[in-house]
């Protein structure tokens, strides 16, 4: 039995899949804390689609496609930030407009000059077959992003909570947001290559949303979300050994289960707690 459970660790590709997933899961979960609070949860989805023109162009120009993806991701993120600041449109409209524009441009380029890049592999990712260069690239992006986030999480929290106060203590909200979007784009691209668009979207939404049900403090929110991201990603990758390949699906299912548990049982913001509070108000009157 134990031999069977340890079996995945005997394979280099499984070990690699587990730790890369965990790293990506952790950093995406970190980002999810901010996205969720700003109503930007769908930004991950938008970015995943917005990289298509970059990938297509990179292919045309014979550049590494991660470069194209990253550049067009950043461009899309900045375009969203710019439209948001310069107009009074709400986040969802801004994200919708920018992402469809980028996606359309991407499709146009692909239709004019068909690429051999398999859009399917971008959507689904392939962590089990990840190449060593990709591992290095993902590891560097994720590690650098994590270091920056750990160093600046309070400043970013202040900018997201109260821009005026951020300015009053001498921070530049614009610069902080650009930094955030650059990190987001880099991590989205890194994660796309490994785990696929579908999973990236889940990873930059669910952990933050789950943690939000469990705490009222931003610091703890981050710790809970990152822990959840790391553990579900590692366990999901591990479990996929036995289920033959559906790593992304496994991770998302695990995260969703945790979310549902928090939704029902969270001590303060869960459904049961709400019902108990409502009950407690009625009882003394009886």
């Amino acid at each position, binding site marked *: 039995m134990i031999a069977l459970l340890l079996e995945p660790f005997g394979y280099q590709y499984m070990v690699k899949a587990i730790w890369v997933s965990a790293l990506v899961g952790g950093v995406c979960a970190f980002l999810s804390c901010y996205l969720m*609070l700003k109503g930007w949860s769908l930004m991950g989805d938008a970015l995943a689609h917005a990289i298509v023109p970059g990938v297509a162009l990179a292919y045309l120009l014979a550049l590494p496609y991660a470069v194209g993806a990253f550049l067009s991701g950043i461009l899309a993120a900045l375009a969203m930030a710019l439209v948001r600041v310069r107009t009074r449109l709400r986040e969802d409209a801004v994200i919708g407009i920018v992402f469809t524009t980028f996606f359309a441009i991407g499709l146009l380029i692909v239709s004019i000059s068909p690429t051999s890049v398999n859009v399917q592999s971008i959507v689904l990712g392939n962590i089990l077959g990840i190449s060593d260069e990709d591992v290095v690239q993902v590891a560097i992006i994720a590690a650098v992003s994590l270091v920056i986030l750990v160093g600046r999480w309070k400043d970013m929290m202040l900018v997201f*909570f*109260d821009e*005026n106060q951020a300015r009053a*203590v001498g921070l530049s909200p614009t610069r902080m947001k650009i930094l955030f979007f650059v990190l987001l784009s880099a991590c989205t691209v890194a994660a796309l290559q490994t785990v696929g668009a579908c999973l990236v979207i889940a990873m930059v939404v669910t952990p933050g949303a789950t943690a939000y049900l469990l705490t009222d403090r931003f610091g703890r929110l981050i710790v809970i979300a990152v822990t959840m991201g790391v553990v579900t990603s590692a366990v999901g990758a591990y479990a996929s050994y036995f289920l033959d390949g559906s790593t992304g699906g496994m991770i998302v299912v695990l995260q969703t289960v945790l979310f549902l548990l928090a939704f029902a049982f969270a001590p303060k913001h869960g459904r049961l707690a709400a019902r108990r509070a409502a009950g407690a108000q009625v009882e003394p009157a009886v």
Partner: protein
Amino acid sequence: MKPASAADLRTAGPTPSIVVSGVTVRYANGVTAVSDASFALGPGTICALVGINGSGKSTIFKTLMGFLKPAKGMVSIAGMEVRDALKRGLVAYVPQAEEVDWSFPVLVDDVVMMGRYGHMNFLRIPAKADRDAVDDALARVNMLEFRRRQIGELSGGQRKRVFLARALAQGGQVILLDEPFTGVDVKTEDAIVGLMRDLRSEGRLMLVSTHNLGSIPDFCDQVVIINQTVMAAGPTETTFTQDNLQKAFGGALRHFRLGGSDLHDDADGRRVTVITDDERPLVLYGERDREKLAGGDKEGIARDNPKSERQT
């Protein structure tokens, strides 16, 4: 406040001052909210900024914070450009209405601590001085018992007090308060005024907008009266006069004159003039009341739906 703490020494350098000269501010929609406004304030001052709704008080604050760029003229704080003054943590600001997300997962404690970021290192790890400043500020506004509450789980006045506490904890040399007393109970207002007096004796400069005309002579040594532009500015005794107020407020000012049997049972010829634009009335005794009351005018006491005499 603990003026001697190490973190505060960094900001103890420059002398606080505000210079606004010839400032015109225009909003994106073309409204000129302030035109050619000038005034100057020095250290150890509490200055009241008064004017009717829409006279440009909040606009002045936003310009002082650098959120709005003047179309003409210039603003300097402590002898520097606004941006440099902000970088050095010289300015604390409490806006009229907080534009924050009330469901954000932060506690009262965390919000007040945000005032201290300018004093902390790169990683924003609070030192004892920072924690003391937070405790002290929360105690001042009577919010210690709520410190573990999520910020949205407070009443309107309590929220206001938290953001006041943040500005106090920040301890800038220049403190800008845009209608800090609106929605705050009298007890808290008195505590805040007491604290502002302490801060003044430490040499800090405070600019406060308020509609409580009555309390201004109590604690403000300077007054700036505005209506799009500066109508009058200077020491309270010489500037905060009925004439100046009438110029700036016009018809928006309520004006009651009470005399005779409303005030006294005996035959006392003196009159009381009550001027208010909103909340606490300004009460002037006797001498300014030149005109005779209209015959048989028995105005009630001000608090009980008085007949008001609109001035133009």
